[in-house]
């Protein structure tokens, strides 16, 4: 007789050990890392020209714009950047050459917060892939309750406003209401390139521009979409908690 518990037991322990251990290859497909030029020679001009969202300059890569389309891979770049690519400032998402992004000097917004954080998700104009990656944090593979990261259905119980999608005109007012409803101290996390730079929708009619024009953003998580491990990294940063360096 099949049973739920039997099913669960046969599946064994699925849960990730990240961030205690580095993320595994299964948790970090190519798209979990921003592209970087190979060697120290900077970004080739052909790659700069090939990038559809102008994420590349000869001097480096803007992780906040990169939609992971892979076009620059034919021109000397590879997905070799850090899995822990989140940052506390927009500037820190811009890498110079193959050096890592500047370390963020800003203090984590919820540093005094004790152990757990409650997260309220707001979709301001996403393609839904970001929403689903956030939902995936609850699946047995990631189970972020083990890290003290909880999702709440009410902004009044939240510490973190997690924003996915590109801010649209129609979502400005609902977004501001949600922000106001969260008690202080609170942190705003922009997940995915949509709220960071507009991503592939930058400049479209009806799109407001970066989230940081609307709200003060405390943590930026690049990716299109960020993978669950990228999201864990960014949420731990918002909570002022330690993360491993590097990754597998």
């Amino acid at each position, binding site marked *: 007789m099949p049973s739920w518990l039997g099913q669960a037991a046969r599946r064994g322990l699925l849960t990730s050990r990240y961030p205690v251990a580095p993320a595994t290859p299964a948790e970090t497909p190519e798209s979990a890392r921003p592209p970087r030029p190979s060697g120290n020679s900077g970004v080739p001009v052909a790659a700069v020209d090939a990038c559809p969202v102008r994420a590349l300059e000869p001097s480096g890569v803007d992780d906040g714009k990169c939609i*992971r389309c892979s076009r620059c*891979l034919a021109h000397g770049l590879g997905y070799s950047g850090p899995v822990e690519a989140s940052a506390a400032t927009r500037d820190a998402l811009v890498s110079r050459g193959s050096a890592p992004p500047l370390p963020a000097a800003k203090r984590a917004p919820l540093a005094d917060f004790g152990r757990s954080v409650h997260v309220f998700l707001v*979709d301001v104009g996403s*393609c839904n892939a970001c*929403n689903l*990656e956030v*939902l995936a944090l609850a699946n047995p593979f990631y189970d972020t309750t083990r890290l003290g990261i909880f999702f709440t259905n009410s902004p009044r119980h939240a510490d973190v406003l997690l924003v996915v999608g590109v801010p*649209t005109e129609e979502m400005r007012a609902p977004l501001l209401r949600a922000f106001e409803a969260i008690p202080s101290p609170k942190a705003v996390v922009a997940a995915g390139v949509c709220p960071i730079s507009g991503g592939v929708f930058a400049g*479209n009619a009806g799109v407001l521009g970066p989230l940081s024009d609307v709200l003060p953003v405390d943590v930026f998580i690049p990716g299109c979409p960020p993978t669950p491990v990228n999201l864990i990294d960014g949420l731990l940063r918002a909570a002022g908690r330690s993360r491993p360096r590097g990754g597998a």
Partner: protein
Amino acid sequence: MTAAPWTVADRDPSPWETGPVAAYGARDGTLTLYNDYASGRAILWPGPAAGRASELVALWNRRGNAGRLRPVGPSEPVEGYGVFTFPYGPISMGVPESGRFDVRTYGERILEITPTAGFKDRGILAALVGRSVPDATLAIERVAGHLSAAHVSAFLAACESAEGRDVPTTELWVRALAQELQRIYNHVHVIARIAEAASQNVGLAQTHALAEEVLRLQAALFGHRWMFGGLVDGAALRKLGPRERDAAAATLRRLADQFEELWTLFLDSRTFVDRIQATCVVDRETALRWGAVGPTLRASGVPWDDRLRQAVPPYTDLYLELPKESDGDALSRVVVRAEEVRASFLLLEQLLSRWKGEIGGREPAAPPAAPGRGLARVEAPSGDLVYDVTVRDGTIRHVGMRTPSHANWPAFAVGLKGGVFTDFHFAYESFGFSFAETDG
């Protein structure tokens, strides 16, 4: 080249109370696509929809008057003593996407529900004009990321038809591979959402885990969990050599067994079945009258699936059986989805076992592109998806689309009339809606 998947009509076929049902209508009235469910054929009429068909087309093509918000279901205001409108959304508990539902009620029963879309309108289609086909594809992948394979396949097929390009069969096989994986993901996700609404927590965790494994397989084959960038010609990260193919086949066999076991447990679970049985009934007549598609249509007894209605490889060479349900309730829609998960596992097994040698990584030879207009449709997880693309000199001039969400909102709103509030989540999830693709 394959045979045209529709017959061109020489007179307006739209008096459709008895006749064919509108499937797509261009905004400018230059063409209308019909499905004739009696004969199983699609009909293309080079003119505007008339009669009731024009109401459906107008609903799908509706734009917001002030701003971008617009009702996407029928709206016949119900009045009466103590009746008030309760707006639910755009940020609402339990619906992880932004959209609003205006509920007319006197307290418990839903007298009328009007889904209102447009909160996530990112102006995608208008912004495609002037872009090259490959650049436009990047945005099409992100119309609805969890439906990227269907959207990209339909969009590229429309472009290829517009430009008169021949597509190598291997590319069509790659698209089918991606679409069937994504169908499994989306159907399993629907089952997970319903398990969540029914507080079936152990089942939810197991189903959620299965969905995660599909995303990991997609990442292993395409370098990206949502297969973004994976369907363009010569995709850089596609890994479909014999080794990956065998590994994928083994993983799929394991996941198919897991799904069988899970699904048996769900069907045995009263908390699961009771909440969706007789919930939000869309009978055959309602489904046809309001132009419903996909599992919604098939759950009401109409056996239409684009994979079988269009002679497009590889589906022409594969065995596919359609599930048969006719009660039209949320349970029927979920059962259809579960049967389709099985069918997709079977399709993938056939695809992978007949797959010889390397597929993909091909550098596209660019044939001279002729200007023109192309229409294409694919069976997305929630139903028929239509793209209408005009291309000139390799540049997009116009894009129209009608997604399964557009087609199914009216049936949802009609089916939920007279229901109670606690039906809402079960009803909503059973249709597999996406506000992202509705808004564009």
